[in-house]
C-alpha cells in the first residue's frame, strides 16, 4: 500500500512540475516577449490554459495532503524550515491567480489591465523560482535542526538554507524548465509569425536551461554539496540527464517538421527524465541537513492510515483522472493539437 501512496505522491509531483510548470512558464514566455508578441501570447495562454488552469495547482494540494498524512515526520521538518520561501510561493500563486482572473474575466477593459498583465508575468517568474529555491534548500545540506536558539539566530535557522547560491540556482533552473515546457507547448498553438516567435523562444529557453543545468551541477560539485556529488557519481542519474540532453536534437527536428504532439510528449519526457534523475540520486533521503539525511520513509504514518489513504487515492484516481483527461480532450489541449495547421 505504501507503494500506491508513493506512486500518487510522485505522480502528483510530476503533474505539478509538468502542468503547473507549463502554466508558470507561459507567464515567463510572455514576460520575455516583445510588446507585440505579449498581446498574442496573452490570448494564446488563455485559450490553452483556460479550461484546466484551475486544476493545475490542485496537484500541489494533493502532494501536500499526501505528505502530511502519510509522511508526517518528513512533512514536519519541511514545513517548519521552509516557512518563509513557501509563504513567498503562496504570495506568488495568489497574486498570479488573481491577476489571471482579472485580465480575462474583468467586465471592463481599461488601464488596470496593464497592472494585471505585469502582475501575472512577474508572478509567473518569481513563483517557480521560490519553489525551486525551497527544493534547493531541502537538498542543499545547510538546514540546521536544533532547539538551541541561543547559539543560532533567526537567519541561521530559517533563512540561510534557502538564500544560498545553490538554492537560487535550483530556483532559476526550475523557472527555465517551466519556460522551456511552455514555449514548446505554445509553438503548437500559434500560426505564422507568432509560431516563429515561439520557436525562437523555445530555442532560447532550451539554451538557458542547458547552461543553467550545467552551472548548477558544477557549482554544486565544486562547493562539495553532497546532493550534487552523489548526483554526479550516480550513473543512472547521469545517464538520464545525458539522454535528456541528447533528446534535444530530435526535439528540434520535430519542432521544425511541425510534429506538434510528438514534440510536446518529447519535451514532457525530457522533464520527466530530469526529475527522475534528481530524485533517484538520493531517494528516499530528500532532506539533507547540515548533519544528517532525513528519509521520506522514516517515521511513517501507521499502517492503517497508509492503507486508508491508498484506497482513497485509488478511488479518487479512478474518478478524477478520466474526468480530467476528458476535459482536456473535449476542449483545447488535445483537440487543437490534432487540428491540421493552416498557414
Amino acid at each position, binding site marked *: 500500500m505504501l507503494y500506491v501512496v508513493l506512486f500518487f505522491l510522485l505522480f502528483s509531483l510530476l503533474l505539478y512540475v509538468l502542468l503547473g510548470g507549463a502554466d508558470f512558464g507561459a507567464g515567463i514566455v510572455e514576460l520575455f516577449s516583445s510588446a507585440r508578441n505579449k498581446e498574442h501570447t496573452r490570448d494564446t495562454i488563455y485559450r490553452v490554459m483556460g479550461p484546466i488552469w484551475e486544476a493545475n495547482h490542485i496537484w500541489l494540494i494533493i502532494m501536500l495532503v499526501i505528505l502530511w498524512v502519510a509522511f508526517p515526520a518528513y512533512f514536519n521538518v519541511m*514545513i*517548519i524550515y521552509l516557512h518563509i520561501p513557501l509563504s513567498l510561493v503562496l504570495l506568488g500563486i495568489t497574486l498570479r491567480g488573481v491577476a489571471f*482572473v482579472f485580465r480575462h474575466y474583468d467586465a471592463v477593459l481599461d488601464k488596470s489591465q496593464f497592472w494585471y498583465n505585469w502582475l501575472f508575468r512577474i508572478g509567473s517568474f518569481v513563483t517557480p523560482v521560490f519553489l525551486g529555491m525551497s527544493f534547493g534548500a531541502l537538498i542543499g545540506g545547510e538546514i540546521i535542526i536544533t532547539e538551541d536558539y541561543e547559539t543560532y539566530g533567526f537567519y541561521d535557522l530559517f533563512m540561510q538554507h534557502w538564500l544560498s547560491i545553490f538554492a537560487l540556482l535550483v530556483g532559476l533552473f526550475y523557472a527555465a524548465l517551466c519556460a522551456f515546457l511552455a514555449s514548446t507547448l505554445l509553438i503548437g498553438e500559434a500560426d505564422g509569425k507568432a509560431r516563429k516567435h515561439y520557436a525562437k523562444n523555445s530555442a532560447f529557453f532550451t539554451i538557458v536551461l542547458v547552461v543553467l543545468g550545467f552551472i548548477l551541477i558544477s557549482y554544486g560539485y565544486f562547493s562539495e554539496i553532497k546532493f550534487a556529488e552523489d548526483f554526479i557519481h550516480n550513473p543512472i542519474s547521469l545517464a538520464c540527464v545525458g539522454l535528456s540532453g541528447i533528446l534535444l536534437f530530435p526535439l528540434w527536428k520535430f519542432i521544425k517538421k511541425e510534429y506538434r504532439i510528438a514534440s510536446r510528449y518529447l519535451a514532457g519526457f525530457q522533464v520527466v527524465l530530469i526529475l527522475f534523475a534528481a530524485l533517484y540520486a538520493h531517494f528516499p533521503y530528500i532532506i539533507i541537513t547540515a548533519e544528517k539525511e532525513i528519509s521520506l520513509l522514516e517515521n511513517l504514518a501507521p499502517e492503517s492510515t497508509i492503507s486508508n489513504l491508498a484506497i482513497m487515492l485509488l478511488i479518487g484516481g479512478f474518478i478524477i483522472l478520466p474526468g480530467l483527461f476528458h476535459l482536456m480532450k473535449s476542449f483545447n489541449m488535445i483537440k487543437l493539437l490534432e487540428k491540421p495547421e493552416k498557414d
Partner: protein
Amino acid sequence: MENLDYARLQMAFTLGFHIIFACIGMVMPFFMVVSHYKWLKTRNPIYKRLTMAWLKGVAIFFVTGAVSGTALSFELGMLWPEFMKHAGPIIGMPFSLEGAAFFVEAIALGFYLYGWNKLPEKFHWFTGVIIGVAGVASGILVVSANGWMNAPSGFEYINGEFTNIDPVAALLNPAWFTQALHMTLAAFVATSFGVAGIHAFQIFRKRNVELHTKAFKIAIVFGAIAAFLQPISGDLSAKDVAERQPVKLAAMEAHYETSKGAPLYIGGIVDEENRTVSNKIEIPKALSFLAFGDFNAEVKGLNDFPDNELPPVAIVHYAFQTMVGIGTLLMFAGLIYFISLRKKSWLQNKYYWLLFIIIAPLGFVAIEAGWIVTEVGRQPWIIHQIMRTEDAVTPMPGMKYSFFYYLFLYTILAITVTWLMNRQIKSLNQETSEEKGTGNTLKKSFKPTGGNKNKD
C-alpha cells in the same frame, strides 16, 4: 503579544476570509443551476443572462476560494507543525477526500464554463449541478476535520502517543454531523441573503428590475428555507456541545455557577476578572432545557472547571449572542419574504427592499461569530483534552511578521474580489440598458476578454 497569539490571530484571519469565499463558492452554483434550469424550461433570455452573470461570480469565487484554500493548507502546517505531525495521519481522510471533491468541482467547472454550445444541453446543465454538490461535499469534509478537533476519536492516546489509528472513525467523529449540518445551512443562509441583498439593491435603485427580481427570488428562497431549518440544527449542536464540551457551552452562555434549572442569559456584559455577568436578560430554566431537554437539569458552570482549561469567556459569549441574534433575525426576514408571496403590494414598497439590503451582510457576520464560538470556545486546546494550542505552534519566532504578511495577502484577495464583483454587476446593468436583451449581447457579456480572437 506572543508568538502564539500572532499565530492564532493569523489562523483566525485566514479562516475568516476563507470561510466567506468558500461559502459563496459553495452555494452560488445552486442559484446558477436553478436559473439555468428555468432558461432551459422557459427559454426566457433573462434567465440565460442571469445564469451567465452568476456563472462569472461562481468562477471568480471558485478561484479565490481555491487560492485561499491552498494558502490555508500550507498554513496549517506552517503555524501548527506539531498538530499536523500527530493529527495529520489521523484526520488525513477528510482532507484527502476533500481534495478529490475539490478536483471533481474544478473539472465540472471546466466543463460548465467552456461547454456552452459544445456539450449536450442537459449534460451541460448537469455539470453545473456537480459543481454545487462537489462544493458542498468539500465543505462537509473540511468541517468533519474540525469536528475531530472538538470530538477527537479514531485513536488511542497512551503516554502521549497516538496509537491504534482508525481514520474512518476519525472522519465519522461524534461532532461531524451536527457541525456539518449547521455549517452547510449557514452557508446557504448567508450566501442567499447576501446575493438577494445585492439584487434588492439594484431593484431599490430601479435598475433592470425584471432581471433582478428574478434573481432575488431564486436566491431568497434558498435562504429563507435554510434560515427556518437553522434553529433546529442549532439546537442539535448545542445539545452536542453540552454533552461533549461542557466548558464551551458554559462559556457560550457565560454561565459561571453550576446550578440546576439554569437560566439563559440574553445579552449581558461579562466581567472575566470578577466572574460576573451584568445587564443581562434572564430567562429562567431555559439553559437547562436547551442544553439537556430538561428544565431542571444541572448545567456545570465555569467555576467548576480548572482555571487552566477555561477559554476566553467574554469573546465566546458575545460571539454566540451575535450568531443566535442574527439567526433569529434572518428567520423573521425569511418569514417576511414568504408573506410577501401573498401580499404582492409589499414588493412595490421601497422599505421592503431596503430591509433586504440592510440584512445582506449579516449572515456572514453570523458565520464568523459561529466560528469564533467553535474555535475560541475550544481553547486552550487545539485537540480537545489532548493537545494544547501552545504545544502545537511553530518554533519559528517572528510570527508577528508572518501575521501581517498573510493579512496583506488576504486583504488583496478580498479587496480585488469585491471590486471585481462590483464591476460585474455594473456591466450587467449597462449592457441591459444599452442593448435590449438580444442573444448577441449575451455572448459578448460571457466571452472572456482574452480569447476572442480565435474561432471556437
